[in-house]
């Protein structure tokens, strides 16, 4: 692993250090690095010092492969796997262990409150870290899946802003839907 260090400055003027390889997990940072603007510090006016360490933690874990897992890492070799019926079983097992370990890490990593979730999502979007964006959007989606409108409101701290008449209409729509889906 290359040990070239990069410095990132948060919106509230705090500086953080990150390895170049890790920083490349971010498409935005990668472009800055490749663009040769490396002297000094990269300012990130949209990311606060609360969130930046969390982003760096993710990048460290996924540095190099952009978070999109195994396949890309060994490039051409993988294609051969498809054609040859008897690919390396050991390799397959190791891959599985790696994936399981990564899942467990992600689970622990994603254990935080909503404000962090939203900020992380915005940071991942701003820094173009696809893996992290996927992870955060997925977590938010899981707060909707299979929930009732009330539960969704509660999960996202939203108040219904419909007028009483609209509200009534909404309830009707909701019932109609529930009936339809129940039929499936």
């Amino acid at each position, binding site marked *: 692993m290359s040990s070239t260090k990069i410095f990132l400055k948060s919106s509230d003027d705090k500086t953080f250090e990150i390895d170049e390889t890790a920083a490349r997990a971010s498409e935005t940072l990668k472009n800055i690095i490749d663009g040769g603007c490396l002297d000094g510090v990269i300012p990130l006016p949209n990311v606060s010092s609360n969130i930046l360490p969390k982003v760096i933690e993710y990048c460290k874990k996924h540095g190099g492969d952009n978070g999109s897992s195994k396949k890309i890492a060994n490039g051409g070799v993988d294609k051969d796997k498809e054609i040859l019926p008897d690919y390396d079983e050991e390799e397959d097992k190791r891959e599985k262990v790696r994936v399981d370990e990564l899942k467990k890490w992600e689970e622990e990593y994603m254990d935080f409150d*909503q*404000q962090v979730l939203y900020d992380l*999502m915005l940071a991942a979007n701003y820094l173009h870290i696809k893996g992290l964006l996927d992870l955060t959007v997925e977590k938010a989606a899981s707060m*909707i899946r299979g929930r009732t409108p009330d539960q969704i409101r509660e999960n*996202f701290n939203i108040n219904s802003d419909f007028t009483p008449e609209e509200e009534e209409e909404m309830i009707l729509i909701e019932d109609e839907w529930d009936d339809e889906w129940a039929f499936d």
Partner: protein
Amino acid sequence: MEQEGTNVLYVLPEGFIAEILSRTSPRDACRSSVVSSIFRSTADSDSVWERFLPSDIQLILSSSVSPFLPNFSSKKEQFLHLCDNPLLIDNGTKTLALEKCNGKKCYMIGAKELSIAWGDTPMYWNWPSRPESRFSEVAELLEVCWLEIRGKMETRFLSTNTTYVAYLVFKFKYDASGFDYEPIEVSVKLASGGRPKHGEVKSVYSKRPEETEAEGEVPVKRKADSRSEAEVPKETKTDSVPEREAPKERGDGWMELGMGEFFNERGVDGVVEMSLKEIKVLWCISGLIIEGIELRPKENL
């Protein structure tokens, strides 16, 4: 859940809400639309619903021969229309519909597109058109001693990472006979790159549910029963030998018989082959109408 949490709408731009909703399901999006006005406009938006539609939907629509395709005002409307109104495609030989709960594709291969042993012989099979069929012709069995029906479908058209079940869609005519001697043999196998990956042969019952209770070795004709063929009893009882499958009512006037299932992982250049035969005993059978073979995602949430 946390009481002190932040209102998502103050923090995330609408584009994010759309992205989040598009990762849920059509059902979740519908429920979300009653949460608040911003949720409503987002949950009904085209950017969310186009993600629930199959990615090749434009291609499918352009190959459609359905005569009355409405002009949809939104992707949501289009989606819901395709759930309830199977679209005739491929010169009218197949239909495509979407599963309402997850947007997965559901195909039916019309009888004309199946290979039916002796299907071309007017003595054995007739090809009438029936008002209750989505296809222009159905296969009507007059009498045959060798029932063999095969169909196939390229897996690249099917939804990926999905377990599909193949069903024979059919009905009995009022004078159907010969179906209670031997179980029928059905199989579904996935052939990709020439080697069959997963295949199973199982036997199922084809006979009319009301006859499962009648003992007797001779096919029991319903005496003076003026029941029309469309009114087949709701219940399918298989008390005699419960482990075998029997046909079920579909709710659209047809019945269906599970032929087997397969998992379509990536859908790369494979073909799934379905077959049904009753050729062991060579009794004469008659009075069967076949609409087609349906490939439908297995029930899931």
